[in-house]
């Protein structure tokens, strides 16, 4: 709910560069430049666009990509937090890639035109939509989340939501427009393999053609008189047709049945090379009866059902001469069926052809802060995401051997960092700063790398699509930034021979295949070996929480909603002393992180919490922690449990609900599991219940306990209580803030003790 915490805003901005990159940039639009058309690709022009793209990608020096998603985080607590450990960060990215849909995919190949000494860019903007084309695939891939904030963001840029789902087709006969699905669907490699495997093992039930020669045709006992009569009639009709077939050829080709009324239902034709009756106009029940009749009475007739696309579906009774002939028919039918099914699977691959193209051409892929994008590409077009970042990057590098991230390049390369002069490295601000000749149609200086954009034989040397925020344009901007950045770091395209790959260029070697695991943490992961690289010293000022000791962190949730981080800190200071807690971070309205100064305090706290819950005597009631435990729903766990919760596929908006759904267990289990992790410490410091209490009574919270006790007994000290209430009231004003210093708490403590 606290979407507007500054940190959260920054985090989501970082995570979703795709959504927020140009939010802050004021882009003056030049009329001529902005009128340049977009290359939009939907289902209707996909085939043609793909063929063209193949040509461009093959000739390209590098390909820039960008994705627009239906959202980034399914809940505030899923946002990447400044102190998240890298494995947790990966789980958050994984969850995002699994739950959200890609709705736009921008691909922009860049080719160096040595004759004109300029890059030529071919931006493509694909509208894609996860539509289920094959019935056998697991339904969960076709359910995705929209984040209302992201939609609002896209809406601000006049995003056309209809375009990714439907488009209008004017049908001839009707006045009303006919809507067809416009988003290009896709199958991941894994899904395709799965579909083909099912096809081979023959256990899919939606076979498009089946021979009913075996006994599985559903035994329906003939009980109703109507069924018996109908079956008898069909038997006669079929044997008539059978006899007619075997007669020496007469002139009349069409079979004339004895009864006229049902003539139109029996139509002789050739199925492949066998004579057959096409059964038209029967209900499914009648067809089942005919099937039964054929099986029981005719050895040389076979019932065949050919399921075509959409409504086209044939039911046939086919004549075969011999058993061999019949086996041949069955083989043919199955082959036909197989071919059809394979074709259908091929067609369902859809947009993945583009990703396969990028992968097979092994071109240098350029993205801007693209870890999430790559995760999406992997999840949507390759297969389920691996459970750890290391496995993920090693698989990614198999498919995309060369990836370069312009955000990392701008932030880590010495020359570029100087040029950026600490200005923002968001996509659009970097574009305006580095490529004014393209964005503002400035006269190109010598140092500028020229780029011409080409869409459907139209060319322009500048392109500013103004407010429009879409993947095709973003990919174009990313490519331009990269080209210019290469120019600045001394790669001279004029000397660059076409055979030489940019990916092999030694000036880029230090920066290639590095991605920000999270921009907020400046955690960089190396795709080639999975190593995590910490950003350079100058950049680590971002890392506010670099000193987080995860063993000392406890996660608490389900406490009374009026308690804020500050109150909780007070509870702890009173229990364990003022220096016991180094920070309290409110993750969402239902959960906080607490970092203790010592690892031992984690187990102390967890066991104390358990004891307090069990006991209901006055001492427990008056204990400062009891405020935290009020309501009986308060739970606590270690950072490891938090990681497990992040890894669950469930997406609840409030953390407390998520934890409950994850656990589905008693609260003690959390404490227990945490305790086992702490076993070693506990063994060294056995804490018996009594000793805890004695200890605590002498702790600084004693004073308040005494007051509370007197209050309990009805002897109120007005001034004191007033003061206390005032005090605790103050806390909620800054409740949402991160309290990462102990000073505030110490002050109040001093006031009270003095």
């Amino acid at each position, binding site marked *: 709910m606290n979407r507007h915490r500054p940190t959260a805003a920054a985090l989501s901005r970082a995570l979703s560069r795709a959504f927020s990159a140009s939010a802050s940039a004021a882009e003056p639009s030049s009329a001529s430049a902005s009128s340049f058309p977009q290359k939009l690709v939907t289902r209707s022009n996909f085939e043609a666009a793909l063929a063209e793209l193949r040509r461009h990608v093959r000739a390209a020096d590098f390909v820039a990509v960008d994705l627009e998603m239906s959202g980034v985080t399914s809940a505030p607590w899923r946002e990447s937090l400044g102190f998240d450990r890298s494995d947790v960060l990966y789980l958050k990215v994984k969850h995002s890639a699994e739950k959200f849909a890609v709705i736009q995919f921008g691909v922009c190949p860049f080719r160096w035109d040595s004759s004109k000494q300029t890059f030529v860019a071919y931006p493509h903007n694909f509208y894609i939509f996860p539509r289920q084309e094959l019935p056998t695939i697991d339904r969960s891939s076709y359910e995705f989340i929209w984040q*209302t904030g992201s939609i609002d963001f896209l809406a601000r840029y006049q995003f056309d939501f209809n375009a990714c789902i439907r488009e209008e087709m004017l049908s001839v006969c009707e006045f009303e427009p006919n809507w067809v699905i416009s988003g290009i669907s896709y199958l991941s490699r894994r899904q395709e393999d799965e579909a083909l495997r099912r096809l081979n093992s023959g*256990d899919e039930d939606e076979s498009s053609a089946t021979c009913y020669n075996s006994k599985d045709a559903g035994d329906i006992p003939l009980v109703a008189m109507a069924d018996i009569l109908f079956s008898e009639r069909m038997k006669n009709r079929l044997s008539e047709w059978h006899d007619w077939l075997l007669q020496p050829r007469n002139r009349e080709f069409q079979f004339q049945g004895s009864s006229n009324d049902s003539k139109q239902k029996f139509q002789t034709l050739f199925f492949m090379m066998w004579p057959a009756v096409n059964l038209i106009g029967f209900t499914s029940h009648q067809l089942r009866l005919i099937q039964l009749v054929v099986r029981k009475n005719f050895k040389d007739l076979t019932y065949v059902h050919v399921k075509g696309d959409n409504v086209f579906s044939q039911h046939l009774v086919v004549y075969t001469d011999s058993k061999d002939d019949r086996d041949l028919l069955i083989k043919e039918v199955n082959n036909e069926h197989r071919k059809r099914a394979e074709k259908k699977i091929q067609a369902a691959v859809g947009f993945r052809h583009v990703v396969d193209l990028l992968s097979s051409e092994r071109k240098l892929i350029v993205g801007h802060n693209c870890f999430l994008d790559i995760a999406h590409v992997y999840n949507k077009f390759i297969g389920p995401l691996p459970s750890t970042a290391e496995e993920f990057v090693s698989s990614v590098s198999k498919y995309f051997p060369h990836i370069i991230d312009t955000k990392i390049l701008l932030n880590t390369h010495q020359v570029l960092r100087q040029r950026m002069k600490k200005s923002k490295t968001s996509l659009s601000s970097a574009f305006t700063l580095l490529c004014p000749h393209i964005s503002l149609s400035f006269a190109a200086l010598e140092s500028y790398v020229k780029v011409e954009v080409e869409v459907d034989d139209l060319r322009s040397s500048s392109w500013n699509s103004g407010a429009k925020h879409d993947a095709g344009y973003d990919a174009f901007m990313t490519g331009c930034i990269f080209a210019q950045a290469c120019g600045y770091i001394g790669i001279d395209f004029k000397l660059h021979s076409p055979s030489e790959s940019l990916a092999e260029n030694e000036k880029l070697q230090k920066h290639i295949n590095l991605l920000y695991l999270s921009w907020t943490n400046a955690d960089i992961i190396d795709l080639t070996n999975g190593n995590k690289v910490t950003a350079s010293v100058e950049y680590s000022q971002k890392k506010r929480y670099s000193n987080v000791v995860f063993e000392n962190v406890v996660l608490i949730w389900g406490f009374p909603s009026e308690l804020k981080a500050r109150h909780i800190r007070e509870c702890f200071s009173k229990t364990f002393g003022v220096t016991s807690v180094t920070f309290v971070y409110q993750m969402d309205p239902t959960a906080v992180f607490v970092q203790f100064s010592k690892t031992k305090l984690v187990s102390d706290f967890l066991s104390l919490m358990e004891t307090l819950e069990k006991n209901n005597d006055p001492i427990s009631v008056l204990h400062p922690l009891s405020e935290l435990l009020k309501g009986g729903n308060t739970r606590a766990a270690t950072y490891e449990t938090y990681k497990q919760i992040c890894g669950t596929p469930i997406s609840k908006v409030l953390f407390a609900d998520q934890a409950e759904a994850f656990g589905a267990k008693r609260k003690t289990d959390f404490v227990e599991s945490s305790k086992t992790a702490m076993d070693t410490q506990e063994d060294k410091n056995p804490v018996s219940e009594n000793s805890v209490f004695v200890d605590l009574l002498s702790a600084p919270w004693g004073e308040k306990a005494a007051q509370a006790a007197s209050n309990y007994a009805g002897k109120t000290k007005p001034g004191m209580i007033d003061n206390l209430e005032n005090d605790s009231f103050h806390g909620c004003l800054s409740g949402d803030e991160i309290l990462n210093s102990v000073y505030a708490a110490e002050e109040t403590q001093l006031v009270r003790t003095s």
Partner: protein
Amino acid sequence: MAVLQKRLFCSAVPKKWPVKQVTKTNFPESLEEIKRHISSSDFVAVSLQKTGSFSAPWHRLLPFDTADTAYSKAKSSAERFQLFQFALCPFSLENSKLVAHPYNYLLYPRDELKLGMPSYSFSCQSSHLTSMAREGFDFNACIYHGISYLSREQETAAKIRIGNPSPSTLVVDSSFAPSVADSIFMERLKSRVIRWKSACQKPKDSRNEVLMNSLRKLIMGSEYYGSRPSINLDVCSERQVQLVLEVLREFSDELVPLLIPAKSGGTQAVRVVLASSKEDKEFFEEELRCREEEENKKFRGFREVIDLISASQKPVVSYNSLTDFTFIHSKFLAPLPPTIDEFASSLRPVFPHVLDVSHLMKVVRPLRKVANIPVAISYLNNHFFAPVDIEISHQATENEGRNHGLNVIRICHLFAKLCSILKIGSSSTMSGNDVLLAPALEECTNVFNAFSTSSEESIDEDISVWTESTRKVSCEHLVFLWGFGSGTTAGKLKSLLNKSHYVSSKEFDIRLVDKSCAILVFWQPGLAETFLDVMNNSEEITGSLRELVSEGLRAASYETYKRVCKLPIWEADLGESLDRALEDSDCLTEAHSKATPKEIYWSNDDMINLDEL
């Protein structure tokens, strides 16, 4: 308003039953109209367009679901998915005439107040979106012009977050006995108020006015609320609020207290506004009421319509009331409570009469298996003579594009036909301010209450309706079987089990729930238990059953299924979920108490019709 009439004898739905399309732009002016229509009608029909329904075959409501498990399923879907269209149709029935006023509201959970409400994120199923797209649903219109809303609970939270002052509604407790501390506090407060008041009322010295004002502001915290002087009195507890109000009571002719809510709930301060006279005070209070009304409209958005229906206390007709009302409850009232009983009792004061058409349809036996409204209507047209005249109050407006929300008229139509066929209600019982429901309708009213209280009577009644092919089965006689590998049919399983000699085929029946799991029903008491005992004590197993168990066959009682739905564990395959529930069960055994055995109906259809919903 011109009245458009259409006589319907055939089943074909006329192309243009004009439904008034309401978006953000025409919402405010449509409110008065709908209010009038609701109050002049006898019933209100609703039909919702959702962004998804269920994620796996077994997640839908199945014939063997009890009220509890059905509610768990409906709850999980209502919590995840979103409403894009809410079609609403106040209507009246007079003999065979149906007077309807259909509206279709386009909804979108836009965060109008920038508070992260009403919804941070929601799920969509691409199948639902594509079928909406085929009908020409305009997603841009929905996202750009859809009406937003806040649930009742969110409204309360939003008001606190926004922190607008509200007039005090606190009534000072009569048994109010101030302690010594209280008295000191009150004295101090009183003198402060008096000083401030007299300062404000002093004849104005024009020369020093500005200076005096800023001094006052500095020293006494005096400010202006609109054109009237005001002062903020900070409070630290609800008790202090009481004390402040008690003090202010003495000055009630001139002073108006406003409560300023704290971010964490409760009250942060009391703002006292000084009116120049008694009339001015009344005028000011009126002004406050108007402002609050405006504010509320902004907060509630579409929920205003829900509140109108609720306030009218008219019976609400829905096709599938459990699904629809779990959505309505979670989007417009409050988060769904954990159990169906709590749900029913939370819903009852808001919607006292909810009529379920699909339930009513079951009374007409052949309609039992019909799962869609047009088919049901055409069946009734062909088999019964029950003409219904539909009179729609709106003019068709050709330029409005697609006519969405037709389904709600179909529901009205079906309902009218059923009432006519079943001879339910003459106009006398149906109209009038206090709604007297015909006894026959009672059966389909608040079905979620009916099933959850499980009164013996209602069950007996039901069985007379369901006759022949339905048998009453206790949940104790049901066993879930899974782990038999894919591609098995119910028939194969049955013959395999039959061969095992532990059960004979006459004693049980089996159906597939999804591809991973089957349900086994035993016709005699005790057999299910025996079977489970054999399955779970593997040493005793012999023969083909042993072979099956070695191959991975597992069995569990209905209790396990209940636990799956209660926890809930929504895996894609039921087998998977049951496995997980069993894994967890060890630590939970003490938690599940012996619940009263629930009874459900087992129909003798060949297969559980998985397309039923």
